[in-house]
C-alpha cells in the first residue's frame, strides 16, 4: 500500500528526470568560451540560411554552431526578456525593424568597422549596432502581356488614378508591405499616407494574403499590377513555372527616390550580453564575404549589399535604385502603421 503510494509520488519525479536527462545535453553549450560555440537566433528561414550555416561549419570546424529558428520579432522579444543572460551569440533578422528595436533597447553591441564598412551606410545602423546582409526592393509587378513599360506609373502615388481602378493588388497583412507603409509615413507624413491608403481602397485595390499570391494573380490575368518584393518573380522563374523571357510578370521600379521602391534589408546584430563575440564576428564577416554575398544573389534572389558582387542580370544594379531618405532602424515603428491600416479599413 505504502509502496504504491511511494511509487505514485515518484512518477512525476521520474518524468522530470527523464525530461532532464534528454534535454540537458542541449541546454548548455551556449555559454562557454569564445570561438568554441555559436548560438544563432535566426528570423530567417532554414531553407535559405541552412546551406550558409553548413558552409560556415565546414570553414570553422572548431566551432559548434546551433541555430534557433523563429519569427524575427518574437526572437527579438526573447532576447529582450533574456537580458544579460541570453544564450544568443548573434541575431540574424529578416528585417531591419527588429534590429532597430533591439538597438533602441540598448541590447546590441557596436560592431567593428571592418564589418560595418563592407556595406553602404544606408544599409546599416547609423550607430553601428547592426549591419544589413542582403536587400530586397519593393517593386510593382506588372503583366507584360497587357502593359508596355511606358504605360507604368512613375510613382506609387499614381496608382490611385482611375486608370488603375480594380487593377492593383496588395497584401495589407504582409510584413514587407507594412514596412513600406511605415517608410511612407516616415518620409511623406501621416496625412499623405492616410490619403493614399483611402484613395487606393476607393480605387478598388484588391487585397491578397501574400506577395506570391499577388504574383500568381497577375500571371493569371486577374489583376494588371501588384505591390510586391522583387525576388518573387525570380522565385517563380526558378521554380520552373516559366523561363525568364516568357514569364508574363515583370518588374517595374518606381522612379528614383519614390517611397514605392523602399529597399529593406535582412541583417544581423550581436547582443550586448553575447558571450560568443569572436565567433559571432566571424559569422558576420563570413556572411559579408564575397562568396556568401554571391549566394544571396544566386540562391535567394536578393540583392547583395557588398559592392562589386554580380547580381542577377535581369535586375537593375542596386546603386541605380535610390533609397528614399530614411533610417531603416526607424522601421521598428510599426504600431502606427497597423493602426492606420485598420483606421482606413484596409486591414
Amino acid at each position, binding site marked *: 500500500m505504502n509502496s504504491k503510494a511511494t511509487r*505514485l509520488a515518484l512518477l512525476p519525479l521520474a518524468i522530470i528526470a527523464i525530461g*532532464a536527462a534528454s*534535454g540537458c545535453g542541449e*541546454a548548455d553549450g551556449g555559454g562557454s568560451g569564445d570561438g568554441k560555440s555559436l548560438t544563432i537566433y535566426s528570423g530567417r528561414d532554414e531553407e535559405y540560411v541552412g546551406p550558409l550555416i553548413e558552409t560556415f561549419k565546414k570553414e570553422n570546424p572548431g566551432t559548434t554552431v546551433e541555430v534557433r529558428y523563429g519569427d524575427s520579432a518574437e526572437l527579438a522579444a526573447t532576447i*529582450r526578456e533574456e537580458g544579460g543572460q541570453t544564450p544568443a551569440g548573434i541575431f540574424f533578422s529578416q528585417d531591419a525593424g527588429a534590429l532597430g528595436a533591439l538597438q533602441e533597447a540598448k541590447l546590441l553591441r557596436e560592431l567593428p568597422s571592418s564589418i560595418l564598412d563592407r556595406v553602404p551606410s544606408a544599409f546599416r545602423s547609423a550607430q553601428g549596432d547592426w549591419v544589413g546582409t542582403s536587400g530586397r526592393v519593393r517593386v510593382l509587378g506588372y503583366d507584360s502581356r497587357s502593359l508596355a513599360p511606358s504605360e507604368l506609373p512613375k510613382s506609387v502615388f499614381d496608382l490611385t488614378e482611375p486608370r488603375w481602378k480594380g487593377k492593383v493588388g496588395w497584401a495589407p497583412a504582409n510584413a514587407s508591405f507594412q514596412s513600406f507603409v511605415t517608410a511612407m509615413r516616415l518620409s511623406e507624413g501621416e496625412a499623405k499616407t492616410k490619403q493614399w491608403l483611402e484613395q487606393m481602397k476607393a480605387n478598388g485595390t484588391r487585397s491578397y494574403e501574400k506577395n506570391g499570391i499577388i504574383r500568381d494573380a497577375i500571371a493569371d490575368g486577374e489583376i494588371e499590377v501588384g505591390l510586391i518584393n522583387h525576388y518573387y518573380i525570380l522565385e517563380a522563374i526558378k521554380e520552373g513555372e516559366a523561363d525568364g523571357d516568357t514569364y508574363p510578370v515583370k518588374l517595374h521600379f518606381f522612379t528614383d527616390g519614390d517611397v514605392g521602391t523602399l529597399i529593406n534589408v535582412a541583417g544581423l546584430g550581436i547582443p550586448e550580453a553575447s558571450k560568443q563575440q569572436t565567433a559571432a564576428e566571424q559569422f558576420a564577416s563570413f556572411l559579408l564575404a564575397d562568396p556568401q554575398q554571391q549566394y544571396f544573389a544566386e540562391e535567394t534572389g536578393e540583392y547583395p549589399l557588398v559592392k562589386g558582387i554580380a547580381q542577377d542580370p535581369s535586375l537593375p544594379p542596386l546603386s541605380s535604385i535610390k533609397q528614399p531618405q530614411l533610417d531603416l532602424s526607424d522601421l*521598428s515603428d510599426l504600431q502606427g502603421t497597423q493602426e492606420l491600416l485598420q483606421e482606413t479599413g484596409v486591414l
Partner: protein
Amino acid sequence: MATHANRLPVAGGFALRGVSPLTLLTAGLVAAVCAVPIVYLFIVILGEPAAAWQAIWRQGTLRLLLRSLALAVAVGFTATLLAVPLAWLTGRSDLPWRRGWTVLSVLPLVIPSYIGAYLFVSAFGPRGELQKLLGVEQLPSIYGFSGAWIVLTLFTFPLVLLPVRAAMRRLDPALEDAAHGMGRSQFEVARTVILPQLTPAIGAGALLVSLYALSDFGAVSILRFESFTQVIYQSYRSSFDRTGAAALAGLLVLVLLLLLTVESRVRRRRSYHRVGPGSARITADVPLGRWRWPAVGFCAAVALISFVLPVGMLIFWSVQSVAGEVDLGQVATAAGNSLLLAGLAAAAAAFAALPVAWLGARAPGRLSRVVDLLTTSGYALPGIVVALAMVFVGIRLVPVLYQSLPMTVLAMVIVCLPLAITATRSAVVQIPPRLEEAARGSGRSPLAVMATVGIPLTRGGMLAGAALVFVAAIKELPVVVLLSPIGFDTLPLVIWQQSSRSFFESGAIPALVLLVVTAPGIWLLVGRQR
C-alpha cells in the same frame, strides 16, 4: 437513492475540512508554478507603470476588450448548442451507428484551429474552392467576427461535448424514474431533474471553449478578426512594446477572473454523488422513433463540416504536394518529438491537476478560487505571453534548465492544465466524501489515501484529462518556438516553417501527420466511454 442537494461547507480562510494538508500543499505548489505568467506581467507592468497606463488608456481598448469578450461568449454559447444535442444523441439515445458518431463528434479536436481557419478561408473565402465551384464573382465575406465565431465553434465544441456526455451517462436513472413516477412530463423531467445535473459539465466545458476563443491567435489572425489577443501579439511583434503588451494581458487576466466567477457560481454549492447504498444502474437508451434519421442527418452534417471536409482538403493538398520538397525524414523526427513532448506534458498535467481538482471539489471557497485563477491563467493568456514569461523567469531562476525539454514540458503544462483539472474535478465530485473519511479514519497517511482511494476512483477523469492535454499540447506552437531545445522540431513548427516559406498547401503533409499522431489521445478520450 437520491442525490442530496444540501450545501457543502464553504471554506473560508484555512478552515478547510475535506482536504488533507498534503492536498493543500501540493495544490498550492502547482498554483505557485502556474503563477509564473501573472508574476511576470506584474514585474513588467510595475517596471514602467506610466507606459502601461498609456497602453490601456489608448482609444479603443475597451471596445476591443468587449469585442473579444463577445466572441468568447458567442463561441461558448454556440459550442454548447452544438454539443448538448450531440452528447445526448451519442450518449443516451438509440442512434444508429452510435459508436461511429461518438468518435466522429470528438475528432474535430485534433484539427488545430489555425489549420481549420486556413481551410475555411480556402474553401469559402475569396478565390476559394466554393467560389470556383459556383463560378460566382464574389461571396459574402467570411472574414471578421462571423468567420472567427464559426471556425472556433467548429473546432472546440468537443470540449463541451465530452464532459456533458460523461455527465449524461452517469445520471442516476432512479432520479428520472422518481420524477416520472410523480407524474411529471418528459419536458419537466428534463428541465427540473436532468438539466440541473448537467449544468456543471456545461459550465466547465463552455468556460474552456470561451477561454480558448479569448486566447486564440492563429485562427483570428487568419480570419482577420481584430481581437484582444491579436493586439497583444502585434504589440510584441510589430511595435516591440513589451510593457504595452503586458498591460493588455493584465486586462485579460481580469476578464478571466470575471468568467471564472460566473462559472463557479454555476458549479458551486451542489453535490452530485449518490448518497443511497449501492451503485447507480446503467442508464437505458431512449428510443428515437421517427426522429432516428433526422438525428443521423444532424450528426452527419456536423461531422462533415467539422472533420470530414477539412481532412479531405488536407488529403487533397497532400497528394498534390507529394512530389514537392517535403522532407519526410524531418516530418518523422518532428512527429516523434511532438509525441514525446505532448506525452510528457499529459502525464505531468494529470498529476498536477489532481490536488487542484480535489481542492476545488471538496473545499470550494475563496482559496480554491485563487488557485483556480492561477492555474487557469496560462490557458487563457496568449501563448506568446506564457512563452516570454517562462523565458524571463526561467533564465533567471533555473538557467540550467533554460531551453531544455523539462522547461518546455513545464510551460506546456501551464498552458494546458485547466483541461486536466476540469476532467479530474468532475470525477472527484462523484466520490462520496465519506469514502476518504473512512480511509483516513483507518489510520492511513494522506498520501496512502490518495493512492488507494483518490487516484483509483478518479482514474477515469485523470485519463480523460491527460488525453485532453495531450491533444492540446501536440498542437501548441509559440511555447515550442521559444523554449524548446535547439533543433527540437515539432510538427506545428514544421507546418509553420513550410507554410510561411511558400504556401500553406506545402504544410499539408505535416498537418496530416499531426492529425494521425493525435489519434491515440482521441482513443483515450472515447475508447473508454462505452
